[in-house]
């Protein structure tokens, strides 16, 4: 059913682009990226370090969250390139979103906001704490978030674990049952985004069974929450009798779901197996690479994306620049895998999932590719760029942020 999909063509082009001879030809335009037909990309800013998510104000000002702090950017002469850049604040993290006249940002332990005042690029007002005091963790610690039009704040509290084993990431160790991590992690918690100085205890668990929902977005048209969730690692090294390296590289879907109040999306007890095209019990919880959980207990994903692609941002397009088929559809930035090794790494692209009335409407298409370059030694460290953040400008153009060098591209539709 997906034979007309764009993805094989674009991916082959990207692979060829990785070879030395072909590279200069592609680099001649679109900064070396391969894009869906009719689109072009320009570099609006570069060199900002480990970029994360993006937000764009109604006046076109660009705000980037990064591991090196917050950055505000303005294109004063409207030539498509940033000509004023200002660092501000003291937050190193991933989440960033504009709600009313506030810039919401997050790090590993909290969500904060800065006032956006008319005419000001970098906010001069003091940071306010919306929620703080999440436990300090290392794994899946970024408290990415989204806000609905009423100001309800949905926070991703990732699980500091791979699969809730008795002994984390140890061969053969079985899963804790029930998994106690789910009491405080591995789901989405809701807060009142208009209230200050909240603690995690003020939140309510909205949904669970989500290992790490970095890509979390309120869909205004559908009045619903959606997420593309990072699936688990290492089925082969932890359970070598059941799975081999090729299985580990390809079978555990990155699941795209509509997230409903009270929903349970199956981590750590299950994962969605792309080879069998069904949900199976995790090997830590009695799985034998075939056995299924109780029917109807966990929803199937709307889309099962390939294993380890690492969905790091999600947005629903409602801008005016792109053709009609993009309306309501989802763009997802896939940061790219490390956990497919020793098999070839994959991901490192921006994908478009056509949607209608909140449901997938056809196969996903690769929208932008070629970020990683040839990536020597199959190591993500050597990726040229890794897409991580997405935002739409007031004119409907799509902005993409990179985590390797802090480059930001603006993608526009030119063919009328």
């Amino acid at each position: 059913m997906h034979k007309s999909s764009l993805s094989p063509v674009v991916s082959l082009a990207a692979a060829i682009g990785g070879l030395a001879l072909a590279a200069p030809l592609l680099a001649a335009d679109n900064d070396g990226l391969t894009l869906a037909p009719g689109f072009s990309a320009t570099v609006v800013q570069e060199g900002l370090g480990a970029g994360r998510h993006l937000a764009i104000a109604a006046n076109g000002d660009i705000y980037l969250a990064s591991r090196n702090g917050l950055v505000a950017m303005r294109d004063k002469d409207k030539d498509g390139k940033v000509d004023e850049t200002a660092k501000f604040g003291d937050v190193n993290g991933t989440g960033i979103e504009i709600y009313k006249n506030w810039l919401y940002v997050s790090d590993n332990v909290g969500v904060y906001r800065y006032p956006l005042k008319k005419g000001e690029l970098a906010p001069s007002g003091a940071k306010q704490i919306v929620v703080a005091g999440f436990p300090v963790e290392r794994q899946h610690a970024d408290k990415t978030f989204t806000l609905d039009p009423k100001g309800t704040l949905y926070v991703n509290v990732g699980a500091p674990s791979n699969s809730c084993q008795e002994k984390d990431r140890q061969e053969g160790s079985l899963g804790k049952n029930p998994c106690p991590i789910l009491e405080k992690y591995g789901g989405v918690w809701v807060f009142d985004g208009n209230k200050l100085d909240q603690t995690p205890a003020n939140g309510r668990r909205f949904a669970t069974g989500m290992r790490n929902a970095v890509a979390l977005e309120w869909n205004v048209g559908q009045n619903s929450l959606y997420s593309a969730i990072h699936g688990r690692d290492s089925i082969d090294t932890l359970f070598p009798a059941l799975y081999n390296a090729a299985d580990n590289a390809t079978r555990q879907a990155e699941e795209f779901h509509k997230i409903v109040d009270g929903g349970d999306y199956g981590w750590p007890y299950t994962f969605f197996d792309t080879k069998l095209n069904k949900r199976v019990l995790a090997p830590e919880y009695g799985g034998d690479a075939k056995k299924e959980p109780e029917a109807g207990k966990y929803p199937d994903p709307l889309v099962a994306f390939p294993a380890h692609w690492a969905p790091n941002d999600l947005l629903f397009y409602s801008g005016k620049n792109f053709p009609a088929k993009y309306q309501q559809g989802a763009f997802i930035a896939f940061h790219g895998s490390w956990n497919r090794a020793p098999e070839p790494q994959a991901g490192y692209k921006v994908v478009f999932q056509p949607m209608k009335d909140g449901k997938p409407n056809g196969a996903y298409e690769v929208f932008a590719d070629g970020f990683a370059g040839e990536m020597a030694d199959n190591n993500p460290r050597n990726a040229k760029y890794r897409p991580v953040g997405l935002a739409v400008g007031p004119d409907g153009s799509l902005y993409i942020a990179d985590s390797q060098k802090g480059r930001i591209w603006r993608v526009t539709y030119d063919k009328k």
Partner: protein
Amino acid sequence: MNAPLKLVAIAVTLSGAACAVAGGESPAPAATPAPAAPAAAAEAAPEGQRLYARHCLPCHQADGGGVPNMQPPIVDGTWVKGDPQALALFVLTGGFDSANRKDSDAHNPMPPFAQLSDQDLAGILTYIRAKFGGGGSAVTAGQVAAARATIK
């Protein structure tokens, strides 16, 4: 969904193949062996390399370079170049808390590898010291056993 996925996989494999040739499959010609490396290091390397691929590579990668923010590099680190018994103890016990690792910004803790036999772990450590530690000396099963004996 299968058709495009397979094609994507082929495409990725094509680009990955070049890397494998350049980086992984011919360690002997690629790396100039240090003259001081004992013969035992080279002898143990094929088995050590196989065991490295099975237990270590998924996180530390084929080039031992680790993954930024996720797993630290092995290459040229103090552990791989340092005392073999300390290295053995570190891998047997894993975790973030072993001395030098407190300041690591890596997200993922290393699990303990105490399930490996002295011989297998010695093979892995010999391989990584030769390949990623600037041609360090071979590690013996006896050294691993001695490290294991210190674990309380």
